[in-house]
């Protein structure tokens, strides 16, 4: 990854963190909050190699755990798992496609919630969280897809004309 790429990544992560912890909660209901770190992680999974991306995905998850819930390592595990799955098929996909990116973020959201739910049910004593997670899944999925579609407008994705 180039120095410019690292710089942009750090700025994006910091921006996402501030936006998600201090800005969005003031204006939107907690159900309608996108998971911007997941959106960044999926971008990494589609574009960056295993060697660089896997530790970054784990660190992104860990960063999310620092600012969320009680269980350090929960999102770190799910992010790493999702990264590996996406990375393993990314070479066979047209990673520059914005549409594919939105679909991948949606699938990653579903996978993330499923993995987190399984881990919480297996290792913690909070069975009732399943209701909260399942009832909040649809808005979460839609807002993640919306955030991903905004990212897909950036120049690093191919335009519709180019795809055609």
């Amino acid at each position: 990854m180039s120095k410019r790429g690292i710089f942009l990544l750090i700025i994006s992560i910091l921006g996402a963190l501030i936006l998600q912890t201090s800005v969005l909660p003031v204006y939107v209901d907690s159900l309608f909050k996108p998971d911007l770190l997941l959106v960044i992680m999926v971008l990494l999974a589609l574009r960056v190699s295993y060697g660089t991306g896997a530790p970054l995905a784990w660190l992104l998850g860990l960063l999310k755990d620092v600012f969320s819930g009680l269980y350090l390592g929960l999102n770190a595990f799910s992010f790493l798992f999702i990264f590996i799955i996406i990375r393993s098929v990314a070479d066979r996909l047209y990673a520059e496609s914005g549409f594919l990116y939105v679909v991948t973020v949606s699938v990653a959201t579903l996978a993330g919630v499923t993995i987190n739910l399984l881990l919480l049910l297996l290792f913690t004593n909070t069975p009732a969280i399943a209701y909260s997670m399942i009832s909040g899944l649809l808005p979460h999925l839609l807002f993640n897809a919306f955030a991903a579609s905004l990212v897909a407008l950036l120049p690093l994705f191919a335009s519709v004309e180019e795809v055609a």
Partner: protein
Amino acid sequence: MSMLKKYGLIALIAGGVFVALIFFSLNIPRNREANAIERSVLYIISPVMKPVSRISFFIADIWDGYINLVTVRQDNLRLTRQIKELNTRIVSDNEALLENRRLTRLLEMKETINESTLTASVVGDDLSNWFHTVIIDRGSSSGLHEGMAVVAAGGVVGQIVKVSLDNSRVLLLTDHSSGIAATIQRSRARGVVKGKGDGLCSLEFTTREEDVKLGDQVIASGVGGVFMKGTPIGEVTMVKKGEYGIFQTITIRPAVNTEHLEEVLVVLKGGI
């Protein structure tokens, strides 16, 4: 002849003045009615007056509305700036007033707590949608430890779970992982308040025989030593006793609106 030349003009002027005086004096009794001269003059002049007056107004309009606008733009900018400044001041005054009310209520709460407390502001929310924690702007440098109780003007907020140097995370009472020993104020029935994740809580482990009614106030029982006995937790909004089972299903609406927390009090007692 020379006399006439010498005094003729004076006599004429004097005569004219005298005639004018006589004319004036004759018209005094009829000062409210137009005489022939007035009527004639008005009759002649009035057709001219109207268009001239319109033209004058038209010119005045052009002058005021188009030509004499040199300072209007500056005035406009100045007034717009003033309006913005005044609006900003009104908003900040209102904000200060609301903050004052909140802090007054917080101070009232503080006076009911026997232990020393520390005021903190909420600076961040939980990243995920299903966990309910907030970040406050006080940490270990202010003497905070994990396990300390956090309250607001209305009652219990939660418990400190993670502490860094200048920030801490507070587990809200609405989180699934939260559990607070509680008592129904009226009947002294006991249970554990657990978060339901949707802004509400449930009172668990309260047996079917216990007397719990809608609207009952739920307070901290003091068991466990984290929350002071009697601190308000919420109000019972639903009670359900099934045909089977040992316990009742009780839903509680927290006394504190955890969605809009701004300032909290950390009770500087206990902790890990």
